[in-house]
């Protein structure tokens, strides 16, 4: 028996444009597996890609979904890194708990700084994020006894994963670890994006005044989002610290904030997939370019930003989805 309410449900469902698992996710898993089996020499690079994807996903939640414009996301990456490193150095070398510590530390910072700065919007907010991140960089530089200053934190060991898998020098365990964390983070990000909260923050991004007039406490929602985003960025930083066994001032540098922004511009903001595409393109390109000439990489970066913002403001995934949308529109009944 045909159930008409099921039809309406289906229409409504697609009208709410939530993220659905599809061929893209399958392709991601296939690519991850293919790298493991087919490119064993590239596992360290692939691990860097995974870390960058996690970092970019965290920024996408804040920027793409919530409209929080930030030039200081490195703050969370660095806090996560230092937290994981200090944890391994002084408390326990167990990696998974270290990631939780990294997430908690970064998330807490997101809460505190969010409450303070998220009242601002636009250029003022960008300035504040920049100021906060730069301040943290200076602070880490000053607290040499804790952070190791210019030299950074090193010499901490990371225990075998789950007590069994030692971090080998070919980066095999590191890769599996990073991919596993990425899967968890992706699912979490997707959870947030698809939830009521996700729709609400998208509304806040689009028209914050109207959201207030719908009775939504905008600042509170943004702070929670910033906290979640910060925590996930902290996971990326912590993962990096554990996998490379080194964390330094460069994890708090402006270039880190700039790079993750570029990743999102390249890949596309606000659609989660963009983080994946952008990260892959960026990390692979930078690796190739760095091999050739590290400073000329900045030329490539510069051109990439300028041309992407100019010609493809929605990034690669945006171009792709606007093509598919046009195709769908053509196939639609008038």
């Amino acid at each position, binding site marked *: 028996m045909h159930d008409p309410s099921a039809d309406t449900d289906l229409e409504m469902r697609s009208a709410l444009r939530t993220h659905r698992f599809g061929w893209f996710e399958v392709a991601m898993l296939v690519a991850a597996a293919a790298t493991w089996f087919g490119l064993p020499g590239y596992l360290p690079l692939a691990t860097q890609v995974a870390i960058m994807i996690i970092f970019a996903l965290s920024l996408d939640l804040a920027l793409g979904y919530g409209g929080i414009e930030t030039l200081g996301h490195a703050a969370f990456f660095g806090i996560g890194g230092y937290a994981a490193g200090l944890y391994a150095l002084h408390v326990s070398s167990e990696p998974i708990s270290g990631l939780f510590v990294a997430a908690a530390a970064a998330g807490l910072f997101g809460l505190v700084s969010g409450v303070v700065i998220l009242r601002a919007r636009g250029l003022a907010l960008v300035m504040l994020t920049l100021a906060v991140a730069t301040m943290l960089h200076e602070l880490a530089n000053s607290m040499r006894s804790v952070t190791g200053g210019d030299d950074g934190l090193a010499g901490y060991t990371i225990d075998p994963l789950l007590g069994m898998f030692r971090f080998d020098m070919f980066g095999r365990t590191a890769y599996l670890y990073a991919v596993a964390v990425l899967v968890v983070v992706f699912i979490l990000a997707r959870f947030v994006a698809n939830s009521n909260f996700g729709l609400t923050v998208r509304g806040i991004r689009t028209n914050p005044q109207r959201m207030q007039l719908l009775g939504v406490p905008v600042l509170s929602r943004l702070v929670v989002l910033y906290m979640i985003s910060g925590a996930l960025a902290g996971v990326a930083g912590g993962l990096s610290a554990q996998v490379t066994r080194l964390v330094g001032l460069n994890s708090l540098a402006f270039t880190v904030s700039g790079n993750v922004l570029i990743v999102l511009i390249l890949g596309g903001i606000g659609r989660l997939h963009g983080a994946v595409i952008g990260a892959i393109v960026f990390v692979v390109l930078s690796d190739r370019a760095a091999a050739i000439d590290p*400073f000329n990489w900045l030329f490539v970066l510069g051109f990439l930003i300028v041309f992407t913002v100019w010609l493809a403001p929605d990034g690669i995934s945006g171009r792709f989805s606007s093509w598919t949308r046009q195709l769908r529109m053509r196939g639609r009944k008038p």
Partner: protein
Amino acid sequence: MPSISTLLSLFIDGASYGMILFLIASGLTVTLGIMRIVNLAHCGFAMIGGYAALALTSGLGLSFFAALPLAIAITVAIGFLMEQTIYRVVYRRSEFGQILMTLGLAYLMIASVNVLFGSLLQNIPIPSALTGVWIVGGLTVSVYRVFLVGVSSGVALLMWLVFEWTMFGAKLRAAIDNPRMARASGIDVGRLLSIAFAAGCGLAALGGIVGAQLLPLEPFYALKYLVLVLMVVTIGGLGSLRGSLVAGLLLGLIDTFGRYFLPEFGGFVIYVTVLAFLLARPGGLFQNA
């Protein structure tokens, strides 16, 4: 308690540092004030000016005082060209898009400078007339620092005269106050912006050249001091030259004194101060429009 001589030195150091920040920031505050154009590549022009002066002195053997106006002119020309071409695209973007695009331009500037001049820190050789110290009644002051304060003050005075007393300045003030009204009353805001932009590049170049002793030249110059300059602009209030002057001086003094009295915390002091200020008064020292 440090001696009077030390305090005076610190004061002059802080003031000269602040004045350099002001010179560089002045162009940015005007363009931001008129059109809300966010130009993260602005410090790049200070850098270009510095490197141009370097090339003219070290490379071509010109004297410092001959290279100075020439390097400024070169930077103004480059800035004007960029404004007429690339920045046309930037203007049409959203605020965040402008931030990103000009960031990209800054990256390009850094890369270009690195290709041409290498990545090591460089100094512009200063004439012997400006080196050394003066001893005034038992107090020692650096000649160059005094020169800095002198030149910056002179330029600031000139700027003030133009701003308050000329037709051009009046139109500029109108455009900053209310660009739409200004356009409606027949002021060619676009042309005004182009001139202000070019002038801003020149001022930044001046700051970069004379300030090279304090802010040494390196490819990352364009981004390294960006945060500081942005802070001067924000605290001083968008579009307020007076605000930038005061903010620059304050930041310069706070930084210098901060580093002296709290050496372990060095640069941290200034950022905490700035943050506290920005949170208390997001509109800046001198609210303008």
